[in-house]
């Protein structure tokens, strides 16, 4: 076959296919409800299956890291830790969040957010590949078909809802109706319910389809040689295909390039260090400087109304037992705390929003030493309260495991300097592998509960 002949045999074949289809679909529904409205020659079950498989590899990771993120708040420990108290059975998996490895929450959250972002182009491509199904006619063919379409509404609605709320939240544009935690947690379960049933119902089709066309062969096929898939029961293949302007491998590379671009422009905010500046499009991609307190901040003292007057010489830490039990609470000045045995721990700060700061050298008093001082030798929990008046995370409760970890501190200094006001001066909690918002800043009161 010469170069000249190739397209000659190829294109009339397409033309014949289109003509046949047109005859067959004469009298079909108008507009997008008619099948020949959809003319992409590359839409078909194979492309959809490949994109679906990529999502199937990624979405469960995002889902599981999301569930772990909720567990990291120790919602079962106290009402104030629980952002979704109505969870009921959906909290079945909760466990006491560990303190080691110290990077556990950092990696979990970086993975959740970054992988979620990276999957957006794949999700968009996948939804593009199945759009004709939205307009299929007749819209309801049987009760089974109707129910399956309803589950697809949950799947698509749930997916877009989850990605949109997540993306808006990491940019702190709180336009969604209600608490992010509530929406994102329950929305995640709706999404996953739709996803599981979709995988169950389509799994065999996907396997069969992927076997029908070799991946390697497909990756070797350029635009000119791209042919529509053979018509199948899914009705994704266009009956009147246009000539290809991009191959299937081209679409896969296109979506992959989108993922890669999003990754490169955002992952720096989770890696930190010199790579932070590579995150050109991510909320925490800017370096703050090289000083001891120049690492990322998500809430300044000014924003939450903590003034220098409250944190000055008159500041005292109230240290006692919860519920007013035990001896009367102690009131300790910062100088008294500095006079106690100091310990230094190298720990990261990681936010639920996915960004984090590398390990900082925190210096302060061990929480377990403070528990003993409050007269609690075997603490069950610790309520840390901030000077900050408003906000969900003005207080947080830590578990026994978190209190007893030798690296859990009431930090007074960081990287050899006093804490800055925005990092929680005069004192803040720092616990390994703890979500950032539970490392309470501007601590005013610590109340230990004994077991």
């Amino acid at each position, binding site marked *: 076959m010469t170069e*000249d002949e190739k397209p*000659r045999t190829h*294109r009339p074949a*397409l*033309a014949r296919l*289109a*003509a046949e289809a*047109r*005859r067959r*679909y*004469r009298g079909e*529904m*108008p*507009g997008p409800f*008619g099948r020949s*409205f*959809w*003319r992409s020659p590359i839409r078909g079950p194979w492309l959809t299956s490949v994109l679906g498989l990529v999502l199937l590899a990624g979405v469960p990771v995002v889902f599981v890291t999301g569930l772990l993120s909720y567990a990291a708040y120790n919602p079962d420990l106290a009402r104030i830790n629980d952002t*979704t108290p109505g969870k009921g059975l959906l909290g079945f998996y909760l466990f006491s969040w560990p303190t080691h490895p110290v990077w556990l929450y950092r990696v979990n959250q970086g993975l959740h957010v970054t992988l979620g972002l990276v999957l*957006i*182009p794949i999700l968009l491509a996948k*939804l*593009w590949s199945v759009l004709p199904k939205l307009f299929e006619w007749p819209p309801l063919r049987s009760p*089974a078909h109707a*129910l*399956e379409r309803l589950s697809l*509404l949950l799947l*698509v609605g749930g997916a*877009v809802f989850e990605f*949109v709320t997540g993306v*808006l939240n990491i*940019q702190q*544009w709180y336009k*969604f*109706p209600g608490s992010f935690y*509530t*929406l994102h947690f329950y*929305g995640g*379960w*709706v999404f996953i*319910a*739709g996803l*599981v*049933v979709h995988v169950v119902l389509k799994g065999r089709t996907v396997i069969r389809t992927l076997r029908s066309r070799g991946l390697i062969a497909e990756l070797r096929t*350029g635009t000119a*040689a791209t042919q529509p898939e053979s018509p199948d029961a899914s009705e994704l293949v266009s009956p009147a295909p246009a*000539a290809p*302007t*991009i191959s299937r491998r081209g679409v896969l*590379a*296109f979506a992959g*390039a*989108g993922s890669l671009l*999003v990754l490169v*422009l955002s992952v720096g905010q989770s890696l930190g260090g010199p790579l932070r500046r590579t995150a050109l*499009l991510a909320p925490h991609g800017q370096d703050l400087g090289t000083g001891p307190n120049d690492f990322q*901040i*998500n809430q*300044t003292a000014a*924003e939450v109304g903590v003034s220098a007057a409250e944190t000055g010489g008159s500041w005292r830490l109230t240290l006692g037992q919860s519920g007013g039990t035990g001896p009367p609470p102690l009131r300790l000045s910062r100088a008294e705390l500095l006079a106690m045995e100091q310990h230094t721990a190298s720990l990261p700060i990681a936010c639920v929003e996915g960004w984090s700061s590398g390990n900082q050298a925190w210096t302060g008093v061990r929480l377990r030493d403070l528990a003993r001082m409050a007269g609690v030798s075997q603490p069950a929990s610790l309520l840390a309260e901030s000077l900050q008046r408003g906000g969900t995370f003005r207080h947080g409760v830590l578990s026994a495991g978190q209190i007893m970890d030798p690296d859990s501190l009431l930090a007074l200094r960081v990287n050899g300097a006093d804490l800055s006001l925005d990092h929680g001066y005069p004192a803040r909690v720092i616990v390994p592998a703890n979500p950032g918002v539970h490392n309470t800043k501007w601590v005013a009161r610590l109340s230990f509960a004994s077991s």
Partner: protein
Amino acid sequence: MRRQLRWYGASPLHLLALLACFGLAGYAATRLVSSHPVAVAVWFLGAVIGHDLLLMPLYSLADRSVMAALRHREPQLPATPWINYVRVPAALSGLLFLVWFPLILRLQSPYHASTTLSADPYVWHWLAVTGTLFLLSAVAFAVRLRRQPRPAPPPERPAAAQEEAGPDLEAGPPADTVRPPADPREGDQPTVQEDQDHALDAGEAAADGAVAGQVQRESRPGPQQEAAGEDQGPPDQDHHQPAAQQDEAGPADEAQ
């Protein structure tokens, strides 16, 4: 039992799986909507409508418009397929905007107050990335053009080709018109597309859709085609050559 199954339209396991799905989703949904039921429902359905009926038609229309607009200039354009060199950087830039528009447009008002970071650079970052993407694409296209043998000078193209340039999106033609309605989200390669349509017109007009007419046409440009009077210039040269070049180009094709 069998009759009920036939009425349902699938196996009982199908029903069971779906009921389990609705059970779990319903359980979560009752908690999800408990605070702001209407707003949450609006957001949920808005997510579907916003994507499927707004975003996707819009980007498809944009894709289509670029192709249609540049189709008029086709004789001046190089024969190398160019659309992906526009489509890819534009889509990637659009993707970044879609994800990061609150940052780019500085919509989150307490950003500086919360983080001490400046909200200003993001719009410039986005523009710089967009510029870089188009630049890289242009360089890739230039390299591609250089590597190829110079195509024959493009033939004259009278009005017939241009009439077809703007496919009707809103009102797809009635099903019995000859030309199938265009898929708004698919770019098609103009020259090839026209060729195909001519083939159809010729084939159907001559033989009332008989396949024989087209089979005949496959072997060589037949009399019907000339009779249709739409194929201009030296037969095949302008239509077939670009495709042949595509074949040679191999992976560079979509490797942006």
